[in-house]
């Protein structure tokens, strides 16, 4: 059976819980909780992408766009219309769901990787819209003054408070996704990945499932976008470009596509690499990512999540 053990999830949740408390005491990593907020936001995207790509076998190169749609809907509705941020978040997710269904349906009804092409084009178009629709988005300069989040008078106004908010949502999304993977629905997704014709012959509505998972992953990306906007209080189009979509894929590839843990591990590593450890590489950063992708594809096709299996294999011999 495909069982995802509960214990590591509990250990991980515990780690998330105590991390800021520990980091605060160690000057060298004092600022890590801030990076962890970004890692959490990106994890929301990659958890959905992992279900879409690793389990259902569909490729999207446009998730930066859904991330951006969530961010901009939150940004525009809160700053220009003074709407409640939580309501904006939900509106963003609903709009993204509709958009994703419209983009995904034609290509997902076909066999083959048409989704990759469709999402690539879609990502580029949305990026142009963010840049050009200046009166809404502020154009290339972006928009500022996006309010922070508060709930029943409790302000998420410190890094730590926001950290716990984001990671609480990440862990909820993670557990939800793990449950899906372990259910009949997850089985159907993996079946689609292995053989669409056999899955169809066994009663699985292949097209519907592909669309459903695509929409789910897009909605999570939109939610992540809203969190991003309310955390930074500022957004600009550069965050949501094609390179970010590709970076998401690298996160998943590094962590391991066929394992939902891969999304967490890969996202954490890449986020720290790009926000911290690779600072002095500057524009050569891209080369490092290329090298990582190459290394993983050739040496570690199962990603870092595959390493425990390899090590176990050594001991068995």
């Amino acid at each position: 059976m495909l069982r995802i053990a509960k214990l590591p999830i509990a250990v991980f949740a515990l780690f998330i819980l105590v991390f800021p408390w520990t980091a605060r005491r160690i000057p060298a990593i004092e600022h890590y909780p801030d990076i962890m907020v970004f890692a959490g936001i990106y994890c929301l995207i990659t958890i959905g992408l992992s279900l879409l790509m690793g389990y259902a076998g569909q490729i999207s190169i446009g998730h930066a766009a859904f991330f951006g749609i969530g961010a901009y809907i939150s940004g525009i509705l809160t700053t220009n219309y003074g709407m409640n941020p939580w309501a904006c978040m939900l509106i963003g997710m609903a709009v993204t769901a509709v958009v994703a269904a419209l983009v995904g349906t034609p290509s997902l009804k076909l066999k083959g990787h048409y989704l990759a092409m469709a999402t690539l084009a879609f990502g580029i178009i949305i990026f142009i819209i963010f840049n050009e629709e200046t009166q809404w988005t502020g154009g290339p300069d972006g928009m500022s003054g996006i309010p922070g989040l508060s709930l029943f008078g409790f302000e998420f106004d410190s890094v730590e408070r926001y950290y716990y908010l984001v990671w609480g949502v990440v862990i909820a999304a993670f557990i939800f996704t793990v449950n899906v993977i372990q259910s009949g629905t997850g089985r159907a997704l993996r079946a689609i990945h292995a053989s669409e014709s056999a899955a169809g012959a066994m009663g699985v509505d292949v097209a519907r499932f592909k669309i459903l998972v695509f929409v789910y992953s897009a909605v999570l990306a939109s939610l992540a976008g809203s969190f991003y906007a309310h955390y930074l209080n500022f957004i600009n189009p550069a965050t949501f470009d094609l390179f970010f979509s590709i970076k998401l894929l690298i996160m998943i590839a590094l962590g391991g596509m066929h394992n939902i843990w891969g999304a967490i591990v890969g996202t954490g590593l890449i986020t720290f690499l790009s926000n911290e450890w690779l600072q002095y590489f500057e524009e050569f950063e891209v080369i490092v990512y290329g090298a990582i992708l190459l290394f993983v594809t050739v040496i570690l096709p199962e990603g870092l999540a595959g390493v425990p299996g390899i090590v176990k294999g050594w001991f068995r011999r």
Partner: protein
Amino acid sequence: MSAGIEENVLELQGVVMTFGGLMALSNLNFKVRRGMIKAIIGPNGAGKTTLFNVITGSFPPTQGTVTFNGRPIQHLKAHKIADRGISRTFQTVELFGNMTVLENVMLGCYTRIRTSFMASGFVLSQARRKEKQIRENALKILKFIGLAHKFKDLADSLPLGEQKLLEIGRALASEPELICLDEPAAGLNETETHVASSLIKAINAKGITVLLVEHDMKVVMNISDEILVLNYGRKIAEGPPEDIRNSPRVIEAYLGAEA
């Protein structure tokens, strides 16, 4: 026959299937009586697999109707046809290779028991109950096909003979009224072939109608009630095994003799 029980489970009328200029099935008419084992034979390229693909909804026929339990199904997608009660195996094994033997059969139960995406994510108690039910059903089927001891193995790791059995098991899990088996004995040795043909008989004894495509004439002659012979997409003979065995047209088609 408005009472709901048709004498014929399946009926094809004027079915045509063309691929570009190639006519893979031409004006095919036949009926399958409930509860029988009907074999479809014919030389390579005769259109047997194409016929299965049309019946099970891999693609719609170019022309004609396919009636299942008195209702037309030729316009339905594969998964809808599976829900109605037709299941199949594939000539080239199409297992879910990266899933275990048990999971393959559990997926087969999908036509009968399923949970929504949301219910799966929140693991509602009914979702858990259903999952347990599915597992029990699947284990029962694995016992029936004799693969219970391998339930944990990856489907890919099984030898061909067992993969073929597993495909039959997966198809059975959908609780079909009609099962279409595409060359279940191809590539099997004598013992395995024997196991496969007893299994087909056992399936039939459960009341499931069987459509069987098979090149192994011993199997076909032994277990089928009726045989339909295809050549170049046309029906050239249909009847009980003894008639087919002696039909000059069939012998001719197989030997490729000129008229």
